[in-house]
């Protein structure tokens, strides 16, 4: 659907004409992304009205104001590596933030970086490790650190040491859906970028929760991201040829794959490793992901997988990466790990340099994630996430695997054994994270349907078994058009109604596209919750009006 000419001209006035287009051939690049098939039954979502590339906060503001004036829905994205960036049932103005790609500042002493939205995590890590620092690494090295931290998810292969991404934003510059600019925390008073909370209540709470609004609440144009120490060299040396580059494991690191006799023991080891706060990364990635990450092709994966040895050996395994700021510290951490292994009957599995390199780079930048997920079948869907104490994650792991396995045996999704990813959060007193990966072929409609069905079943199971909300609380494929909120909300004190109120308050003209957030026009008429307090049974309360 074309924009009104007057609106188009108004947008052209904000950016130069070369940065705005409504050419269909160009627009198709902005409605195509993995996972669309699960939502729409087609790789293409409906086409946006136009695509625009602002180069500054002022231009973003100008665009948003035009949208408010003319009633045009808009959504911004950075690298656009997910359905939430592009997909809605009707078109909108797609704001591509590619031109906003500056690293404005790296404050070495206070350990934070101020970046624009198109800075990828690998770019930031490349520059910060030169200064003895690193950011957390979101879903792959090409993804936007700002988008991940402020607007989407924020999970990371190294979050046990680098923190959950959603907890790393400090001050933020934010163009609200109404076009006003809000600066959070110390930035609001001109004091700098060092904190995003206050004065008073923290508006970071509006910006995102477990996940972010995926473009449904305006545009983040700059963010200060908390960094953590990096104990490795200023640059990682690599050797080898594509696709098997090998990273030289720095002297201050150790990379281990540890196998356990049982799931119980694996979880106990994860728990102890988190408690002891010794690891750079510690996660269960599933044997297929491990095999995919260390091989050069699917052919090689098949060879590794044939015979069943790999999946049996690594059924209960953890990838453990240790780092240390000194040899003395490494000595302690190794001793601690050995003690953990002794208690849990864990055994370090000797791997060659290629495998070790794969584990290391995955922890370092998330590199290898695309291999592990997309190469095998073309696409994957993830969900069935649980974020809580490790005990419930273990239960979730068992439930999910059981349900998924049935579909895998029918051949419609990849039969990749137990593909759950489990990791800790920030030295454990924050629980951990678990999610299930389901690999399917987007060129095969049956496979696509099966993947969607698995995820939907697991989302329902999660609510039924009181595991968690799932669906990444709003930004996964199965939460398109807020569907998860309408189902989970009534079971969780109608949080979705509060979200809708926030949406209405901050986006009065409803121009910030919200297919992966909430739409206040969708009413929940289900009866209110019936949850008990710790002291008494509380009667259902009326939905908030």
């Amino acid at each position, binding site marked *: 659907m074309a924009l009104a000419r007057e609106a188009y001209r108004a947008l052209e006035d904000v950016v130069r004409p070369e940065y705005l*287009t409504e*050419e*269909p*051939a*160009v627009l*198709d*690049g902005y409605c*195509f*992304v993995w996972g669309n098939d699960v939502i729409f039954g087609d*790789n*293409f979502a409906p086409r946006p009205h136009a*695509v625009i*590339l602002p180069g500054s906060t002022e231009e973003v503001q100008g665009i948003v104001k035009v949208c408010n004036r003319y009633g045009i829905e808009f959504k911004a994205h950075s690298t*656009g*590596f997910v359905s939430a960036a592009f997909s809605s049932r009707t078109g909108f103005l797609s704001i*591509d933030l590619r031109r906003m790609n500056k690293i404005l500042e790296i404050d070495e002493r206070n350990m934070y970086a101020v970046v624009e939205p198109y800075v990828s995590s*690998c*770019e*930031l890590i*490349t*520059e910060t490790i030169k200064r003895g620092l690193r950011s957390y690494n979101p879903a*792959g*090295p*090409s993804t936007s650190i700002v988008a991940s931290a402020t607007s989407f998810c924020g999970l990371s292969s190294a979050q046990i040491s680098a923190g959950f991404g959603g907890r790393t934003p400090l001050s933020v510059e934010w163009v609200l859906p109404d076009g006003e600019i809000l600066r959070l925390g110390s930035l609001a008073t001109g004091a700098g970028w060092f904190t995003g909370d206050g004065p008073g209540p923290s508006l970071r709470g509006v910006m995102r929760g477990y996940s972010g609004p995926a473009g449904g609440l305006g545009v983040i144009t700059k963010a200060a991201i908390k960094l953590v120490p990096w104990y490795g060299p200023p*640059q*990682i040396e*690599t050797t080898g*040829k*594509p*696709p098997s*580059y090998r*990273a030289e494991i720095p002297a201050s690191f150790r990379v281990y794959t540890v196998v356990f006799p049982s799931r119980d023991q694996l979880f106990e080891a994860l728990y102890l490793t988190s408690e002891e706060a010794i690891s750079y990364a510690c996660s269960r990635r599933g044997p297929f992901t491990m095999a995919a990450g260390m091989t050069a*092709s*699917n*052919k090689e994966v*098949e060879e590794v997988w044939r015979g069943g040895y790999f999946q049996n050996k690594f059924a209960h395994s953890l990838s453990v990466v240790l780092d240390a700021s000194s040899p003395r510290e490494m000595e302690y951490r190794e001793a601690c790990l050995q003690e953990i292994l002794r208690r849990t009957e864990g055994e370090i599995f000797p791997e060659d340099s290629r495998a070790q390199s794969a584990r290391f780079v995955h922890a370092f*930048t998330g*590199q*290898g994630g*695309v*291999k592990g997920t*997309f*190469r*095998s*079948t*073309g*696409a994957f869907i993830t969900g069935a996430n649980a974020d809580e104490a490790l005990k419930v994650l273990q239960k979730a792991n068992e439930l999910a695997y059981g349900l998924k396995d049935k579909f*895998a045996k*029918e*051949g*419609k*999704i*990849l*039969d*990749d054994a137990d593909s759950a990813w489990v990791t800790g959060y920030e030295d454990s007193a924050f629980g951990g994270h678990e999610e299930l990966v389901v*690999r399917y*072929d987007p*060129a*095969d409609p049956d*496979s696509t349907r099966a993947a969607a069905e698995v995820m939907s079943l697991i989302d329902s199971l999660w609510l039924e078994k009181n595991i968690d909300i799932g669906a990444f609380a709003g930004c996964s494929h199965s939460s398109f058009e807020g569907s998860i909120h309408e189902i989970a909300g009534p079971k969780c004190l109608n949080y979705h109604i509060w979200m809708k109120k926030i949406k209405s308050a901050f986006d009065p003209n409803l121009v910030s596209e919200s297919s992966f957030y909430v739409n206040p026009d969708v009413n929940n008429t289900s009866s209110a919750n019936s949850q008990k307090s710790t002291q008494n049974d509380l009667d259902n309360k009326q939905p908030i009006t």
Partner: protein
Amino acid sequence: MALQDYKSDMVRCCRCSYCKWVPHMKMTNRRFATVCPSIGRYNFHGWSAGGRMVAGLSLLRGRVDYSKRLLDMIYQCQMDGGCDVSCKNQRDLEPLETMLALRARCVEDNQVVPTHAAIIDSLNKQDNMMDGSKTERGKWAEGLEVKELAKERAEVVYHAGCRLSFDEGLWPAAQRAVMLLRSAGVDVGIMGKAEVCCGGRAYEWGYQKELGEYAERNANAWDTAGVKTVVTSCAHCYQAFKVLYDKIGSKLNIKVYHITEYLNLLIGEGRLKLTTKVPVTVTYHDPCHLARLAEPWIHWDGVEKKVMGQLIVHDPPKEFRRGANGIYDIPRDLLRRIPGLNLVEMCRIREYGWCCGAGGGVKEAYPDFAIWTAHQRMDEAEATGAEAVVTACPWCERNFLDAARGGDVRIKVYDIVELVQRAV
């Protein structure tokens, strides 16, 4: 293969944007972290390999019609293959082949870039990509007294290529090459006026028929001349002879060398000695068609199948060309053999090098973009502290020289043979 044969690949593109970056494990400086000039210049996603995969799918499904913008999206690309290397680090897809098929489809549908069409028209008449007269071809060799293989025979043919033949400013590169070969006692000749295009650049623009025709003509001409070896200074020609002819089933039954390979060989045999100091600090620019695009062709004729439910494999197993086996070390070894020369490396090198900007029809149809791309590369070269950037392809050299003309660029541009000759 035709565009529709790549449909599964197009559908399976996940939009990870790896095609826009150097392989992440090779990222050492964010200033030089991108690998795709196209999206670097034009910014919209369509100007990337991933974006063109989508465009191909859109075209196949009839979602879009041809337009000037679509053609710009397809042709504002040097077809340098950096995207292909980066993608294949993680995926088993064929982005570059898909883009080639997309261009072929455009030509098939008579949707062409006017500048390209004019040059191809000239090619068909004059056998060169430089809009020059075929009667003038070979003029660069006047005074060299080198064998003319239209009339004589020789073991080795030196193929100058269209750029070197008709770009008078670059004639010294060809002249030096021939003189070096002769001084090493090589029985070398040239086709002179009878030399014709390799067909490689045309192929890259989507004109596939011409490649086959020139493959046949070149093979026949060299066969008649008794040639056993073809040596060329042009990376495009090298890639055409070595890779593309094989791809289309017209593999040459003679040896194919790039001049750097052959000079290295001669030095190794003691037939050429580099004894004079050339005290200069240089950085080497890998020409795409000598580097990642020169990886030998791997024939595969099979089917895709699934195992383990949905794991995509091939029957017979398919080896993917991922850029590992291009010519990277030989030019560097050659430079290191030059006494007194100091070689420093840029950030983006080898299979993940940044393009000079001239390929894919960009130099002809989008000269500003070609120069922009070259400027990026020369900034990177200057950042190494080198006095000069050295390359091994006349298209690269020409584009760098054109970019340096602006006055902002301090770094010198050398053809590698010039430095070798100085060292003799």
